[in-house]
């Protein structure tokens, strides 16, 4: 226990003044009909997001990425642990958070088709947060909303259009513009491009990266697209069955992956040329499926699929340990205890 606490502090202690978001031992269990059974969507995760940084949260479907995002936003109440935003505890539900906090954290949902009200005009959608938070005087809201349309690269005549007359990419840009209205310092992007055409994804990503420079924001970028993360993330965290398996700076992550799961994922990135294939650090065949979060395997939760497992893996839960500067891994092969 003590050791765990140490490892946690070591993850989160670095440059505390620079940390925008700190998540400590966050757990989120959903109850099921059976009282003794829980869906362990998030099972003890800790990570930080620093100022002006893009943190990629990667994982398979069902690994708890979106639940993490929603829990940070306060859409779910967390089972235990804490979420700290700029030194302020925000572990409570969104409705209990002060209004000023709601300005600071914004989210862009996966499917822009459902995150924009079909019965409201784009102009109304973008000016609503401006009005709620009195960001600009009432007389200026339309002007500011139009500036925001410009910023994300949408034409001015969108202002009076309804979301259903826009394409998927344009809708997502509207959702981004809406998130920008309050000048947030942290933006959570929940797979913002996975519902879109490949051709539009690039435009959205470029816009997002430009805006980050301009507005001095941090991104928590949730995705399952590893090659996208390679291009834009500063650090990457891999989630598996509600837990972070490995967290490392992007270059480290792709060059010297430590966890067998990371190795598996990195070697499964599709590439075109044999030369690219040869550049991959390791070749591990992907096998098996992610188990149900209701019945988490005992010991290391990856043991059902791990090609390198040994006895401890079936019994003990490994702890997060630091293997390189800023590079943490949760695996018995690196755990000094074993």
């Amino acid at each position, binding site marked *: 226990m003590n050791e765990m606490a140490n490892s946690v502090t070591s993850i989160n202690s670095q440059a505390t003044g620079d940390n925008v978001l700190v998540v400590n031992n966050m757990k989120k269990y959903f109850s099921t009909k059976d009282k003794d059974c829980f869906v362990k969507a998030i099972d003890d995760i800790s990570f930080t997001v620093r100022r002006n940084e893009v943190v990629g949260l990667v994982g398979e479907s069902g690994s708890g990425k979106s639940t993490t995002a929603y829990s940070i*936003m*306060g*859409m779910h109440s967390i089972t235990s642990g804490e979420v700290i935003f700029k030194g302020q505890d925000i572990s409570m539900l*969104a*409705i209990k958070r002060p*209004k000023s906090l*709601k*300005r600071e954290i*914004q*989210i862009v*949902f996966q*499917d822009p088709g*459902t*995150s*924009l*009200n*079909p*019965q*409201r005009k784009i102009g109304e959608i973008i000016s*609503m*947060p401006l009005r*709620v*938070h009195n960001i600009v005087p009432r007389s200026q809201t*339309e002007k500011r909303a139009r500036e925001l349309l410009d910023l994300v690269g949408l034409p*001015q*005549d969108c*202002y*009076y*259009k*309804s979301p259903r007359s826009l394409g998927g990419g344009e809708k997502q840009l509207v959702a981004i513009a*809406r998130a920008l209205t*309050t000048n947030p310092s942290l933006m959570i992007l929940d797979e913002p491009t996975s519902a879109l055409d490949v051709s539009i994804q690039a435009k959205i990503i470029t816009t997002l990266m430009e805006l980050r420079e301009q507005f001095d924001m941090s991104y928590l970028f949730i995705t399952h697209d590893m090659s996208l993360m390679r291009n834009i993330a500063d650090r990457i965290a891999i989630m598996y069955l509600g837990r972070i398996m490995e967290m490392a700076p992007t270059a480290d992550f792709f060059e010297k992956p430590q966890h067998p799961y990371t190795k598996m994922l990195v070697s499964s990135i599709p590439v075109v040329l044999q030369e690219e294939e040869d550049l991959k650090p390791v070749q591990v065949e992907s096998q098996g499926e992610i188990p149900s979060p209701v019945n988490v395997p005992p010991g290391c939760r990856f043991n059902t699929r791990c090609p390198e497992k040994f006895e401890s893996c079936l019994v003990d839960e490994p702890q997060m340990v630091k293997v390189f500067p800023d590079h943490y891994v949760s695996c018995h092969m690196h755990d000094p205890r074993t």
Partner: protein
Amino acid sequence: MSKKNEKTANTSVASRSAVRWDNIKRNWYMFSRNKISVVGFVAVILIILVAIFQQYIAPYPEHSSAYTNFSAAKLSPNSQYWLGTDASGRDVLSRIIFSFRGALIMGVGVIMVAAPVGVIMGLLAGYYKGRIVSTIIMRVVDIFLSLPSLVLALAISAIFTPTLFHSMMAITVSWWAWYARLVYGAASSIRNEYYIQSAELIGASRKHIIFREILPNCWFTILTKMTLDMGIVILMGASLSFVGLGAQPPKPDLGTMISDGYKLLPDAWWLTIFPAAAIMLIVLSFNLLGDGIADMLNAKEV
């Protein structure tokens, strides 16, 4: 600089009205694809016009009140009295035309009170789904829905003196619950949409979320229900006045006319058939219009 601003302001106004015009055109296109609903729409407009200009359209406006001319009593339809005359010699056509206003007032009056009350109740119950407020509202709604509305209306209007206003009140009391249930269903599913979550996360007030985010998405459903209800409420009003609990003679009323006329069946058939056909015409027109609006809504959702 200021010139440039002026220019953008102008274009924005232009594009606002252009977008609005586009919407109207698109909705009309969706609506008019079904020719029968266009017929309903035109018929409803005509009925409203007849109700407004009744004095000018009716051939014998003075026959709308206590007028007697026994020399012309119970005449079958002829060139002078197109739809015949009743037992006191009044022109049936004129009396039907004069009864339209009462029927429309009945329908509009009931819906204008029942719909807002029911919609607000339904929105609150939908927004607070799973909480005690919602449970209380919906159980009260269940109680009102479990009473047959015609029987409830009969009971209420029998207590008070029978007038048009009281029968309207009676129908309203039993009618709002339908709106509450309809809107509850829509609102409680919309409540979980991401755009509502997003508005909550931004910090919008409950008032804003309920009336600006949820209500606009229920609007078309409500409108369809309102149009379809017009016919049913008018029918119910006619039923109440048929048993003598609606507008009182000598005021012309379709239900009263039928109840006066059926005693003279089958000889003076025109006294029953034509008012009944008029009720059918009104109800059918509003139903066709309502179906057209429903089609328009469904086409939009695709």
